[in-house]
């Protein structure tokens, strides 16, 4: 489906990624319900770029993120990290994978063990992934704290003594400690105040430049994604419905769902948001509808939308949407 595999600088790629929960049979042979969290995702991330992933709650963003760092295994499909299969990497050496790809969590406070000093939290990856100890360890910790603009004396504090923004910077420092190539950021700023969001986003941009990092940035906040991403993928109900280079997606959305997302984002000075009718919720993940999952909510839905699943050609450069009746048909791919 994707032409990304031919491009040499692709570091992280997924093919037909599917993750279901439940399923199987009960003791007496009855079929247990299956939840489809991710229903076939193809994304590719190039070295040094930021791939933004947007979508509403429950569309499978976090499941995708967890699979990307190896916290969860896909039910079908595969993930490749610079050409090697993720399952092999995990089986061969979990630490080696952790040294290459790291994760930053949504809730900064709860992602830190409340009983451990920041020093202990930060020392763990340095000790076990990088084999540091003694003076080298202390020096590296000081460097990391400096990199995320925190004073070194914060090392001897407990997580509850931090503000959300400070705790998130500790979380970022912990991810950096492993010296990874790729960092998956799962809603890293959603739990923060707007002013603090900017601080953390700027920090992330600086770190990316300084250490040559690659980001997968997951968020439900369009403006945040727009600010940080080189490319954006819009997810709806376990699938990517539209993907484009950053600006194009916001200027000329093709998929009606992207349009809806853009319209429903609250903007100062704008009153009366687009309110959908009562049916405006995600389809039942236990029994996905045939055809386009967005069809029941879509103002442009026609007969073919409920009959067949729309397909799309997502590349590294082009703009495409999984829609039979796109809003702004692309002239040149």
């Amino acid at each position, binding site marked *: 489906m994707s032409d990304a595999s031919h491009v040499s600088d692709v570091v992280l790629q997924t093919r037909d990624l599917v993750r279901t929960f439940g399923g199987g049979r009960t003791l007496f042979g009855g079929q247990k319900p299956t939840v489809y969290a991710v229903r076939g995702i193809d994304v590719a991330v190039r070295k040094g770029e930021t791939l933004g992933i947007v979508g509403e709650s429950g569309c499978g963003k976090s499941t995708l993120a967890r699979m990307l760092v190896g916290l969860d295994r896909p039910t079908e499909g595969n993930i490749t990290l610079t050409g090697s299969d993720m399952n092999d990497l995990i089986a061969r050496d979990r630490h080696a994978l952790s040294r290459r790809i790291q994760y930053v969590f949504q809730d900064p406070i709860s992602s830190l063990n409340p009983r451990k000093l920041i020093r202990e939290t930060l020392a763990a*990856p340095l000790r076990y992934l990088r084999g540091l100890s003694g003076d080298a360890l202390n020096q590296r910790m000081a460097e990391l704290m400096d990199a995320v603009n925190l004073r070194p004396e914060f090392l001897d504090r407990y997580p509850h003594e931090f503000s959300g923004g400070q705790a998130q910077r500790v979380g970022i420092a912990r991810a950096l400690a492993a010296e990874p190539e790729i960092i998956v950021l799962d809603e890293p700023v959603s739990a923060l105040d707007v002013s603090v969001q900017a601080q953390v986003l700027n920090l992330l941009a600086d770190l990316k430049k300084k250490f040559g990092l690659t980001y997968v940035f997951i968020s439900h906040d369009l403006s945040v994604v727009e600010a940080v991403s080189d490319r954006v993928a819009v997810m709806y109900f376990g699938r990517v419905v539209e993907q484009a280079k950053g600006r194009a997606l916001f200027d000329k959305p093709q998929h009606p769902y992207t349009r809806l997302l853009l319209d429903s984002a609250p903007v100062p000075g704008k009153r009366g948001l687009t309110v959908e009718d009562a049916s405006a919720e995600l389809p039942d993940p236990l029994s996905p509808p045939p055809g386009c999952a967005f069809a029941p909510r879509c103002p442009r839905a026609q007969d073919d939308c409920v009959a067949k699943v729309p397909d799309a050609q997502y590349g590294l450069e082009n703009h495409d949407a999984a829609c039979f009746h796109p809003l702004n048909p692309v002239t040149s791919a």
Partner: protein
Amino acid sequence: MPNIILSPLNKRRMVNFRANKRGYWSLVIFAILFVICLAAEFVANDKPIFVKFDDNWYVPILSDHPETAYGGDFDVETDFYDPYILGKIEDHGFAIWPPIPFSYNTIDFQMREPQPASPSARHWLGTDDLGRDVLARLIYGFRISILFGLALTAISSVIGIAAGAVQGYFGGWVDLGAQRVIEIWSGLPQLFILIILASLFAPGFWTLLFILVLFSWMSLTGLVRAEFLRARNLEYVRAARALGMTDTRIMYRHVLPNAMVATITFLPFVLNGSIVALTSLDFLGLGMPPGSPSLGELLAQGKNNLQAPWLGLTAFFAIALMLSLLIFIGEAVRDAFDPRKTF
């Protein structure tokens, strides 16, 4: 890493523990009683602590000397109640006796009253039906009860916590299977199995401990399992996993310390249960071998000798005091670890 003797959190816990006056003083009293019991040989014994005989110093409690050492005629173990030997010691030096000059198995042959004898200056809490000093037996019995309770609590906690941790952390089929095993195991009629086992093995401290561990390890499993089930999905546990930490390390370093609060809160109550378990077995005659000092055995004697109420009352008050102290300590521990008070 700096060596912190007491983290701020634990300091706050200490403050909270002390704030519960009843629990704090219960701990103090319990500690004093426990230390006295640990030194039972020096408190209640049928031998003097020191004997000065001519220019020689003897410590009969620690080492045996034949009667010849004290001027006797035969090379046999010294009987310090023998008036002849006592007279010799008085002539040649002196003896320092423990406050209670009887051990738990000393039968006082010099009593003139029928046994069990009521409390007197010689036997502060009277004697039992074999003429043994009740207070001496109480002290030794208290010690065995507490040591047995502590051992049982420690062993069954270690097993229970490990089992609960594995169940909760891995969940799924492991959890489901182990849960069924525990349900079946805990459905076994414990007392009957104990009676059968007690008739197969000669009961002793270690066999009893083993048999009781078989059934008591489950007391903490459910609690720890629930804590682990909750904690395994917390973000810092995921973070540790994303860092490539092994499961054992995550369980031990990240989840267990957080599950320990609920566990430690329960420990005094588990200890209580362990002591009661031993006491009831002793009461039924299925516990420690005959002749060993035990609170349950004293209680049974009280039941069989209602005309000698000091037996039953002594056992009752001793058990009630010990269990109440432990409950009060448990309450203070619960306060100390209460997250609403520490954070």
